[in-house]
């Protein structure tokens, strides 16, 4: 066996080992959380609000956190989508051309993608202080929108760039305006991608704890107004884990289970949506 054959097998073994380590590690995480969480999950957890003495082992559930997280995730996805869509239409060839505006917007989105979510939390906090708004659902939505915007916009932009030029030109040739093309051709053609982008953002938003710890607060009741503080699943995991009571800690596992299931469902829904809407796509 020559040197290079030995080298070949050596690296092959090394690569297979690292693949197994990483894949194994990731499967281990999902398995541990699902297993430990499912054991401590019960109906009261998902249907009741925390009652008196909940955090020292009393009765109740974490409905406040589930509703709060879904509200935060859903509303911030809507806002992020409402900002991302026009931006994505704008930076396609039809409006901004290959010009500086498009390049600048893409650079800015790339930069924002990398900014840590705790920084968005801190920024939203400065805005809150400026307009003298307390920890609230609204502030949480602002922070999460900032976290999601680059994720959603980059995903949608990538899909929109794949729309064939001929398709748009065919529409322009019969007298369509740019707005017609954007709403009737591009958005139809990219519908699966747009949904996938929004769901990707939703999954990231609902799981993000760092940005809402400074902004959304935490409460045991359901929010009635945008200015009410709101509970959330990631923080429910975090706070319950801080308790010395093993009973309460077990509830942290259950909260993590619920959170993980929501995120995994969003991921799987992405795949399904992509298939379902693909039939409207011209190939």
């Amino acid at each position, binding site marked *: 066996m020559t040197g290079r054959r030995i080298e*070949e097998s050596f690296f092959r073994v090394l*690569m297979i080992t690292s*693949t197994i380590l990483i894949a194994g590690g990731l499967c281990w995480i999902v398995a541990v959380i699902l297993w430990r969480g499912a054991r401590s999950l019960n109906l009261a957890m998902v249907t009741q609000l925390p009652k008196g003495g909940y955090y020292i082992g009393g009765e109740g559930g974490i409905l406040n956190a589930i509703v709060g997280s879904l509200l935060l995730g859903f509303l911030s996805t809507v806002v992020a989508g409402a900002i991302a869509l026009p931006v994505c239409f704008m930076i396609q060839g039809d409006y901004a051309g290959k010009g500086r505006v498009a390049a600048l917007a893409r650079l800015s989105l790339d930069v924002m993608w990398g900014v840590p979510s705790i920084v968005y939390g801190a920024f939203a906090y400065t805005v809150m202080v400026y307009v003298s708004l307390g920890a609230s659902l609204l502030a949480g939505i602002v922070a999460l929108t900032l976290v999601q915007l680059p994720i959603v916009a980059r995903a949608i932009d990538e899909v929109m760039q794949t729309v064939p030029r001929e398709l748009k030109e065919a529409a322009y040739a019969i007298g369509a305006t740019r707005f017609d093309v954007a709403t009737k051709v591009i958005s139809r053609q990219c519908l699966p991608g747009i949904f996938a982008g929004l769901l990707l953002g939703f999954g990231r938003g609902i799981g993000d704890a760092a940005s809402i710890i400074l902004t959304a607060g935490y409460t045991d009741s359901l929010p009635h107004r945008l200015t009410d503080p709101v509970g959330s699943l990631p923080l429910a995991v975090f706070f319950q884990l801080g308790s010395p009571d093993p009973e309460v800690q077990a509830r942290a596992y259950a909260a993590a289970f619920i959170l993980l299931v929501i995120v995994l469902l969003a991921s799987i829904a992405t795949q399904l949506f992509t298939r379902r809407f693909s039939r409207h796509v011209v190939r």
Partner: protein
Amino acid sequence: MSVRNARDSAAYVLMFCATVLCILLPVALAVSLFVRSIPVLERVPVTTLLTSSDWAPSKGQFGFLPYVVGSVWVTVLAMVLATPLCLLTAVYISEYAPDMVRTLFKPVVDVLAGIPSVVYGLWGIIAIVPIVAAVGPHVGKYLGFVPGLSATGFVNGDCILSGAVVLAIMVAPVIISVAIEVLDTVPIELREAALSLGATRWQAVKHVVVRKSAGGLAAAVVLGFARVFGETMAVLMVVGNVPQVPRSVFDAAYPLPALIANSYGEMMSIPLYDSALLMAALWLMAIVVTFHLGARVLVWLLRRRVE
């Protein structure tokens, strides 16, 4: 002007405004954080903030050294663990793996990339911390002479090593996903040319594929770095949060993002405290953005060299 044209123009204005907003957001972020950190900068010089370890917000002492050093330890160790493993995995999946593994691996990795950080942190508490606590004292006993591996006193598992392991696994889907995409863009002809000259597969990878995609792979690692450096929750849960300058991977640390997240309750009640923390957020942002732009320049330079 017809209704359709008017609608088109109105939509244009709206889209233009949204785009401008998007471009100005990072600037607004940096400016507002900077404005808010002026009060502490006026009282204490930056050099003192960065080199002092005296942390007593109520006395107006803000020495960030332990936090900065803690951040650097955790980030560097996590990247040292993650980078080789992730790149080897990406090369295996892209160049070696049978088709079935390939088609299965990519979507699974993309799904796992979305797992919330608090779940990674919880896994760290359940699985990694006990292992580190059990292994730590033995490593300290036999390898304690190596700088950074000493385990003096009690190892309770909430330490830099645990944080780095959790972060390394957490960032793996991000790096691998981008790296596979980069490797897949290398034209198959280049590999075939190398193989037809008698190169082994690994030689083709080493001399052709990796060379061609070096810039993209570097960008993948930088993306991972940004994620690790700013990660808050997963680290906070396993790293111990003791404000000290760590000397070993078995020491507890207190990285900057964890400090910001943990101080949300008291930061309004102590003067200058919020200003100091918002300055720390500004540092986080500045470092991540610098690395990001640096990676772009690097990709550009490497591409020019290859072509």
